[in-house]
């Protein structure tokens, strides 16, 4: 530490709010005697323009290197204190109001002692702070959208229409995905061709959208903002630019190997299925008047640069064959809902005469053995399909066998309509399906509402199968490094960042994240597009406050690489772990996990924390009073503590709080140091497990604390001297109670024998 550092300490009385508890004058006088303090000033409103001007003048006059502001919580008046004429990382806020004066107003004497202790701690922090300058990193403002279904197409259009380049890749020959195969969408019963045609024309007319069909991701490298993607394109054998759609090849082909675009398709260019081609047959290539056919075209690899990636890989229908009692694949006229969709679309004769049909809901869904989740759309799909039959022929009798009908929101209208039309809903799933007579299906079911057994003979049984993630998802996971949830859908923080995957710059849209209907897919595509644009915008200037590894200490144990929730770490050219500034989200889980305490975040380092602990006067409340050092997570616990201040909830002044980005930031060595220098209790407060914004920060903090409390037990110290508690944003009462209870316990335990 440089002893010549000049520090200015500025006190705010908050118009008496702080002063009525703490004697700010005497604090200021005391502070002015500490070494390194060059300027001390007190103001009734430190956030006023005059006071800010005074600070800026002082910076110039005294040449201040660091500034300490003893006022309200660092979450308030951020803007006001952001530009004081020195690097903003040289300015430290001491939370005098929310975490001292307001919560200890019943005990002014001790509040003043705590205030002094807090000042000393944060003085040490600011002394050891580093100046951080934003760095400019060029971000390629083009997006890669993987999957050309309804979500992918919409996301592409949304991004392209804001003037950014998009590359949309689809593994099939044509865009449209599963939605294009449908007969009608609910709830308005529009045919997909209508909306799709509009989307395709938008794609065609927008020069920012580039489409690659029959293309798949080979590898993804680079880092967010500058991904380098290798794309493998399978041959189509027809040159898209040359083909005029004359159709000559189609008439000629003896093997039906030409896949001709139907109705509305994009691209509206045929393709050739070489697997069907007869050997040595070259007829189509010969007849093509524009020379568009190349039967010997090979797969191409192309390198693409993309700033961000949107995953819209969609879904696959669940295969009901493993559920043997429904006889799918064994019995005729047992079809899945997707197959029935094709019947509705293509075989109009099916609807010519009245039919007897039965729908079985939740086939494989909400079943631990198959799909443990609800697929969200099957109820509406079945009702819609039942309506196709009923509306074509009102004499048809249609049964829907269900566990629960789930038609949320506007879709309830669909259900009501179905009931009115005379579709029979039976609560109870049929047992085994049989075929007693040709072309018919027989089965029995127990109607649990009426309490009677039904024996039914139908012409067709439609199995309402759910959605599952596409086969290739685990493979994609390995390539991109995203995480999947327990159902193999792409994981995200559902509440706060539904569109963000756990990797920076990679977003998800549509059914690859969770089962969704068309309207929700389109919605999620819009959100993913917005997130992508935000990413392009926000990432031009970055503050390098990401963790840095002290290579003099690092032993390359790789714990940081393993524990980083965002896979931001890789080895640098010297073989040491290095976090990618673009991938990192500054949670500091690596800093907390490093066994050698060799990793520090830019704005709160191991060294700072260590010095801060040294600066604590362990007996600031007297020899017999225990003290608690609290590490409060920025997202929840610290704010709950601030809330306690705002509400004026009282807790004992034995608690000193330090804000950390995540509970996982706190290193074991820091805790060990605090214990061995005489702190009586360590409290780490973070979010509850499944709410941690950094995925596993809280969970890891708990594991680490267990290790330390085991160690304390071995040392014949009380293992309860370290404690993890989960405090949510709104649990300020719980926070105060926790501290009160902990102080009581620590008093019973007696003082830390290591306190001198």
């Amino acid at each position, binding site marked *: 530490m440089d002893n010549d550092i000049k520090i200015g300490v500025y006190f705010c009385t908050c118009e008496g709010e702080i002063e009525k508890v703490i004697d700010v004058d005497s604090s200021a006088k005391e502070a002015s005697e500490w070494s390194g303090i060059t300027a001390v000033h007190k103001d009734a409103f430190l956030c006023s323009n005059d006071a800010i001007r005074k600070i800026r003048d002082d910076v110039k006059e005294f040449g201040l290197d660091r500034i300490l502001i003893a006022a309200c919580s660092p979450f308030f008046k951020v803007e006001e204190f952001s530009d004081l004429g020195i690097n903003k990382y040289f300015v430290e806020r001491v939370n005098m109001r929310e975490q001292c004066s307001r919560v200890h107003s019943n005990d002014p004497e001790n509040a003043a002692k705590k205030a002094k202790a807090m000042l000393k701690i944060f003085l040490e922090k600011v002394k050891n702070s580093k100046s951080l300058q934003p760095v400019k990193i060029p971000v390629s403002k083009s997006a890669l959208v993987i999957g050309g279904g309804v979500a992918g197409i919409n996301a592409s259009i949304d991004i392209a229409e804001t003037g950014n380049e998009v590359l949309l890749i689809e593994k099939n020959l044509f865009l449209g995905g599963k939605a294009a195969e449908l007969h009608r969408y609910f709830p308005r019963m529009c045919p997909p061709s209508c909306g799709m045609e509009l989307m395709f024309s938008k794609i065609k007319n927008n020069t920012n959208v580039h489409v690659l069909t029959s293309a798949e991701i080979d590898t993804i490298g680079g880092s967010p903002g500058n991904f380098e993607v290798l794309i493998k394109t399978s041959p189509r054998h027809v040159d898209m630019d040359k083909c005029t759609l004359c159709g000559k090849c189609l008439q000629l082909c003896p093997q039906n190997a030409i896949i001709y675009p139907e109705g509305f398709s994009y691209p509206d260019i045929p393709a050739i299925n070489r697997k069907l081609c007869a050997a040595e047959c070259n007829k189509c290539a010969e007849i093509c008047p524009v020379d568009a056919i190349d039967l010997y075209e090979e797969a191409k690899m192309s390198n693409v640069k993309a700033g961000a990636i949107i995953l819209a890989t969609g879904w696959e229908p669940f295969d009901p064959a493993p559920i043997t009692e429904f006889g799918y694949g064994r019995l005729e006229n047992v079809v899945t809902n997707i197959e029935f969709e094709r019947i509705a679309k293509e075989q109009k004769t099916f609807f010519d005469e009245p039919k007897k049909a039965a729908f079985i809901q939740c086939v494989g869904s909400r079943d631990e053995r198959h799909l443990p989740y609800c697929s969200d759309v099957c109820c509406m799909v079945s009702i819609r399909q039942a309506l196709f039959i009923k509306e074509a022929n009102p004499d048809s009798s249609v049964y829907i066998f269900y566990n629960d009908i789930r038609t949320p929101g506007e879709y309830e209208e669909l259900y009501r309509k179905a009931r009115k039309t005379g579709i029979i809903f039976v609560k109870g799933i049929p047992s085994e399906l049989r075929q007693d007579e040709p072309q018919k299906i027989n089965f029995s079911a127990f109607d649990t509402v009426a309490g009677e057994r039904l024996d039914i003979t139908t012409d067709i049984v439609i199995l309402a199968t759910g959605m599952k993630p596409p086969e290739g998802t685990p493979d994609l996971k390995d390539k991109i490094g995203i995480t999947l949830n327990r159902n193999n859908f792409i994981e995200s923080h559902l509440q706060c960042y539904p569109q963000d995957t756990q990797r920076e710059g990679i977003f998800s849209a549509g059914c690859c994240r969770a089962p969704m209907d068309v309207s929700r897919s389109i919605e999620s595509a819009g959100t993913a597009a917005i997130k992508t644009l935000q990413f392009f915008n926000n990432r031009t200037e970055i503050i390098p406050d990401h963790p840095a590894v002290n290579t003099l200490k690092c032993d*390359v144990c790789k714990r940081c690489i393993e524990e980083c929730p965002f896979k931001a770490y890789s080895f640098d050219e010297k073989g040491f772990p290095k976090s990618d500034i673009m991938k990192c989200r500054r949670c500091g889980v690596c800093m907390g996990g490093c*066994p050698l305490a060799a990793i520090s975040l830019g704005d709160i380092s191991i060294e700072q924390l260590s010095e801060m602990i040294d600066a604590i006067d362990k007996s600031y409340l007297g020899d017999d009073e225990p003290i608690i050092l609290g590490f409060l997570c920025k997202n929840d616990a610290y704010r709950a503590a601030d809330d306690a201040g705002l509400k004026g909830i009282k807790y004992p002044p034995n608690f000193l709080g330090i804000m950390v980005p995540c509970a996982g930031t706190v290193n074991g060595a*820091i805790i*060990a140091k605090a214990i*061995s220098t005489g702190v009586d209790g360590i409290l780490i407060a973070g979010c509850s497990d499944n709410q941690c914004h950094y995925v596993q920060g809280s969970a890891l903090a708990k594991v680490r604390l267990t*290790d330390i409390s085991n160690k304390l037990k071995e040392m014949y110290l009380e293992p309860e001297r370290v404690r993890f508690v989960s405090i949510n944003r709104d649990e300020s009462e719980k926070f105060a109670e926790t501290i009160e209870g902990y102080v009581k316990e620590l008093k019973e335990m007696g003082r830390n024998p290591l306190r001198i």
Partner: protein
Amino acid sequence: MPPYVVKEKCDGCKGKEEPLCEQICIGDLMTLDAETGKAYCRSLRDCWDCMSCTKLCPKGAIEQRIPYQLGYHGAKLIPMMGTDSITWTCVDINGKVERFAYRTRNRK
């Protein structure tokens, strides 16, 4: 007497190529059991009781059995490493506990 690895605590240092105890051991005695993924001392009689591995282990999974010349069964020596501090807890055969906290110079 050699270090004893508490299997339930050891997590093989996650990276699983060379755990910290293997890196720090001056005699190159500690290594990972490929099957269990846990560390062990491969040559018990060669250990010098330097306790480097015990101090370094992030999980606190390594216990040191003190040589009988220093303390008979029941005696323990437990280190706890802070950022720039080490605290020794010494337990003698009668269960008497003494603790010593020192400042170290391993901060930078």
